[in-house]
């Protein structure tokens, strides 16, 4: 059944961000702030009002595009993305840079678009929109290193996007249908075309989920992003990928192993990390590891756990990024070696950050407790004891870093006597809202459970489970204070898997600049001149005689026209990749808007 994109019962929530966002540069001051908040709220209410069903179906060439596929799974993700949109807009409402605001709006819009996409092509369009808009949240930091980090971020995502596209094309050639279908990948290596298609799609998706060895872009780019940009980024890219993994790849066993490795890998790197925001970035990898592993297990309980965990994770992780972002905003640094003693000047920010830390650590009465435990228990019930124990180990590590290390070294530790104040009202308001969500979900978890895709048969607050968690966490705390001396950071970075592309890129450039260039100049150049250039010159002299007499007159007129055109075009060709990226995004947006608006 074909229904409209904008009917009374269904309005695509992305439309508010994508079309409404375009007016932001025209507005100023309070009006602009109110307008941005209004858009985010309207998108949220659009999500609340979405009935289940299929909407926004368009025939485009031979393909059927579906922009509004609403079921329990897509709706719960749309809910949290829309809520995060509101919180993110409040946190960043003071940012005057139009480009940065637009980038964030298109990023959120893209994420909602992926969530509601019913076919692979529209999923891919919004997927790419997310990559190309979010990179501007890195670039607008405007430091040399963030420009570089942004390029690397884009390269990873373009590569992942192309692999995804290859999988989609192969899938389409096999089934002749673009509808998103459940196609898990079984085993370790693709054996036939169908499993190759599933494999390529899986790889494309896990690049965005930051699964090692394809996840190095995350701790590279997020700490390089703007204060507000990182808050958005912490919420959307990986969790959109988790959503797509649930929809397409649930039950792919390889994800169990990758997810568990990921959960521990993030924790190990977090020990070594000095930049608070990069430490948190590694903990995104660790937390998404729980989700990826749960998707791999694929039981109803595991999927419920993953969805609940993604929901809670977006709130507490953004809260943590807001807290450390506020510290960066007010003091100019997020490095633990340069911070300390801030509890005297920024105590309220400390409280919000600690609430985020307790939530991510799954402390009883905080949001992580009701969500993480469901995923982990699913592993216990499946009798995958090794995975169960590894995830428990990672939980201890989570508390160790986000609950203890980050707050301790920023707000206590060595008092650096930094003069700072609490952040502006809007940043604090966003943190208060997130904090309330974190505690609220931990206490009143039933409404969240009601949103989950399958019916829930799980009670988080049993005596044993509460005691188990308290023991792990409080004894981790004991270990933390006993080993505190070992945890003082040094001014270092840690090499990640992006060492390979970064170093080989340097080697490649050396190869091009030195041996290749001299080969080209000395050898090939000589041969070329002797064999090709000289004979051609002789012919050319002969042809020239004909040319001057006959052809010139006609050509001159055409030439002048071409020159005039190219002078106009020159302005577009600035040679800056940022400008090209902007043009491409504009093109994609134009296509989407045309498709949305045309009947």
């Amino acid at each position, binding site marked *: 059944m074909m229904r409209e994109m904008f009917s009374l019962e269904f309005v695509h929530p992305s439309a508010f961000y994508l079309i409404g966002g375009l007016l932001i540069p025209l507005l100023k001051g309070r009006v602009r702030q109110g307008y941005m908040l209004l858009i985010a709220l309207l998108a949220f209410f659009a999500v609340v009002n979405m009935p289940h069903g299929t909407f926004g179906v368009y025939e485009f060439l031979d393909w059927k595009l579906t922009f509004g596929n609403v079921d329990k799974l897509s709706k719960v993700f749309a809910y949290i993305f829309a809520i995060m949109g509101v919180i993110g807009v409040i946190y960043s409402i003071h940012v005057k840079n139009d480009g940065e605001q637009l980038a964030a709006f298109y990023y959120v819009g893209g994420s909602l678009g992926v969530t509601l996409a019913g076919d692979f092509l529209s999923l891919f369009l919004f997927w790419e929109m997310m990559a190309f808009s979010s990179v501007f949240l890195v670039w607008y930091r405007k*430091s*040399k*290193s*963030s420009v*570089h980090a942004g390029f690397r971020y884009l390269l990873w995502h373009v590569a992942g996007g192309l692999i995804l596209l290859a999988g989609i094309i192969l899938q389409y050639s096999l089934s002749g249908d673009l509808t998103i279908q459940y196609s898990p990948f079984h085993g370790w290596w693709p054996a036939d075309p169908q499993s190759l298609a599933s494999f390529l799609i899986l790889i494309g998706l896990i690049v965005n989920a930051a699964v090692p060895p394809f996840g190095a872009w995350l701790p590279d780019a997020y*700490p*390089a992003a703007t204060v507000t940009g990182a808050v958005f980024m912490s919420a959307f890219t990986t969790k959109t990928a988790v959503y797509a993994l649930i929809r397409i790849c649930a039950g792919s066993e390889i994800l169990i192993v990758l997810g568990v490795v990921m959960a521990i890998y993030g*924790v*190990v*790197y977090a*020990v*070594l990390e000095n*930049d608070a925001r990069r430490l948190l970035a590694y903990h995104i990898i660790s937390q998404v590891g729980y989700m990826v592993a749960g998707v791999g297990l694929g039981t109803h309980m595991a999927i419920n756990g993953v969805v609940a965990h993604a929901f809670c994770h977006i709130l507490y992780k953004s809260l943590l990024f807001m807290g450390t972002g506020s510290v960066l905003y007010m003091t100019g640094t997020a490095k633990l070696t340069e911070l300390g003693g801030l*509890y*005297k000047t920024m*105590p*309220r920010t*400390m*409280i919000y950050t600690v609430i985020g830390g307790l939530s991510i650590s799954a402390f009883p009465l905080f949001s992580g407790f009701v969500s993480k435990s469901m995923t982990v*228990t699913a592993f*216990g*019930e499946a*009798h995958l*004891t090794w995975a*169960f124990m590894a995830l*428990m*180990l990672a939980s*201890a*590590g989570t508390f*160790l870093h986000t609950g203890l290390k980050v707050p301790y070294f920023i707000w*206590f530790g060595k008092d650096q006597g930094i003069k700072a104040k609490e952040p502006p009202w809007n940043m604090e308001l966003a943190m208060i809202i997130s904090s309330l969500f974190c505690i609220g979900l931990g206490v009143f978890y039933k409404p969240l459970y009601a949103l989950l895709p399958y019916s829930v048969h799980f009670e988080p607050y*049993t*005596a*044993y489970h509460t*005691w*188990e*968690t*308290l*023991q*792990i*966490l*409080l*004894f*981790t705390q*004991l*270990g*933390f204070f006993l*080993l505190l001396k*070992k*945890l003082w950071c*040094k*001014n*270092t*970075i*840690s*090499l990640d898997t992006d060492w390979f592309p*970064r170093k080989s890129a340097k080697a490649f450039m050396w190869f091009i600049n030195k041996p290749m260039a001299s080969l080209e100049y000395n050898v090939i150049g000589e041969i070329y001149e002797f064999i090709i250039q000289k004979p051609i010159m002789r012919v050319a002299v002969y042809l020239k005689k004909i040319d001057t007499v006959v052809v010139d007159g006609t050509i001159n007129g055409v030439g002048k026209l071409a020159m005039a055109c190219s002078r106009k075009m020159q302005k577009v060709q600035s040679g800056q990749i940022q400008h090209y990226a902007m043009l491409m995004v504009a093109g994609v947006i134009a296509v989407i808007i045309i498709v949305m608006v045309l009947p």
Partner: protein
Amino acid sequence: MKLLEIVEVLRTKKVRRIAYGVLILLIITDFFIPRHEVHFFGDEIPGFWSLFGFIACVLIIVVSKWIGHLGLMQHENYYDEGDV
């Protein structure tokens, strides 16, 4: 400011002693907590998760630092790009 006073109180030695008391109490009470869902042997041993938490914490710190010193940790200007 009131918030600051509360934080200062939490940093005193007395609070630390109370915290140690809580840890001991946690292990003792674990002997009396009913077990409904036993997934593996550790679930039946009282105080198992206390030991697990402590060892996990120590392991994570020691092993990670060891891996870091194998060569993962490098100076900030390793890729020579300047400041973040």
